[in-house]
């Protein structure tokens, strides 16, 4: 390739291939870029040259479905170090609260979690599901999805079993209360909300 960069059409095709997770056919490229097939072919040629093996960290690959960008094999070890390890970023407060409710009350439904927290736990529980810390455990009698923790949860928290969860008594503001933990959490949640919580959709 010339050092001065790519033609406008080649730049557009590069952006399209970058964005698309799937290979894109020459026809689709032409249609999206509003260009003639001949021009697209020529622009693809420019890209092929720019992404010649050894030139960059990415390669232009021609597969059955069309064209796609992929990383060069040399970068694999670094990519593994960056991305293949289990992701354990610190839990956000919302995630920690949601995970604690699930850990101590399991199985527990999403509407119950919402009532205890006073705010929706949808995005927090989605993240916990995605990271494999919790999983679905059937449905409540009202049809709401129930959650429980996973074996990965125990491993990541260094717990042998759920019995090893710390006794929340030492953080309990009113440890003298006798009632069941679930009942007390629901009551406190409703008091914090200050008004009856609308029934959560499940």
């Amino acid at each position, binding site marked *: 390739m010339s050092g001065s960069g790519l033609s406008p059409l080649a730049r557009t095709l590069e952006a399209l291939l970058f964005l698309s997770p799937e290979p894109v056919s020459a026809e689709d490229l032409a249609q999206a870029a509003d260009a003639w097939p001949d021009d697209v072919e020529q622009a693809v040629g420019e890209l092929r040259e720019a992404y010649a093996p050894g030139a960059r960290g990415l390669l232009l690959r021609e597969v059955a479905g069309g064209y796609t960008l992929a990383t060069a094999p040399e970068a694999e070890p670094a990519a593994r170090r960056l991305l293949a390890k289990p992701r354990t970023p610190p839990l956000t407060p919302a995630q920690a609260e949601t995970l604690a409710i699930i850990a101590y009350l399991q199985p527990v439904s999403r509407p119950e979690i919402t009532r205890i927290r006073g705010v929706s736990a949808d995005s927090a529980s989605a993240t916990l599901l995605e990271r494999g810390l919790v999983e679905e455990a059937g449905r409540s009698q009202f049809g709401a999805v129930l959650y429980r923790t996973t074996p990965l949860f125990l491993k990541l928290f260094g717990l042998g079993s759920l019995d090893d969860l*710390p006794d929340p008594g030492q953080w309990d503001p009113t440890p003298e209360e006798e009632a069941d933990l679930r009942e007390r959490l629901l009551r406190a949640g409703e008091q914090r909300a200050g008004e009856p919580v609308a029934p959560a959709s499940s």
Partner: protein
Amino acid sequence: MTVSELELDLEVFSGPFDLLLTLVLREEVDLLEVELADVVVGYLDFLAARGDLDLEVATEFLVLIAALLELKSRLMLPREEDGLPELEPGEAAEELLARMLEARRYRHAAQHLARLLAGEDGHRFRAAPLPRWLRRATAGDVVAAYDPTQLGAAIGGLLRAPAPLDLRHLATPRVTVAERLSHLRALLRHGATSFDDAVRGADRVTVAVTLFALLELYKQGEATWSQDEPFGEIRVAPLGRGAAANATAHGNGGGR
């Protein structure tokens, strides 16, 4: 529908302090002449266009209007009646000024953010799943990464049931239009009444909500009202079924 939709619809403000600032800064408008009634009427027209009254939304809107009423009344009323500390005119003006300037600052910051976002238009990020060779589960690598005490601490925090938070009057409506509607209807079942009677002993928010309920009764053709002079007594009389006798007995007001 929510009040935020209404904000969009009016397209003039996104909060009472903004509205107030806009009005005050307009050379021709004196704060004392801000016609809050126009805002209410505009809202009623908006509702009429939609064809139904959502009481919950109406109440929410009233909270907004009540905030404006309070600010305005601080300047108009020589005396506070509900225990709020009385402010000297100078103090009231300073407090109002401070709140308006604070709201203004964030309104401008909001515009700056909107411009930033618009400037980013056209930059797209890649959102593709990781290739399969990076997704391989490596169960053996898992080591403890989290401290279980944060779970116990979170439960402890959730067990806390605090004293109710003082959100000032505008965070939570204490009275609903529905309540004041049934209050007015109950009064009107006994014939004509006056607005002062309907709100005797009530706080300002209740007064505002009652006024709104009265507008609703008027719109529904259940009641009529009249006022002979500015700041004069507002007479309220029932209309419709069974109201004729009462209306005659009390006279139906001369101001209509």
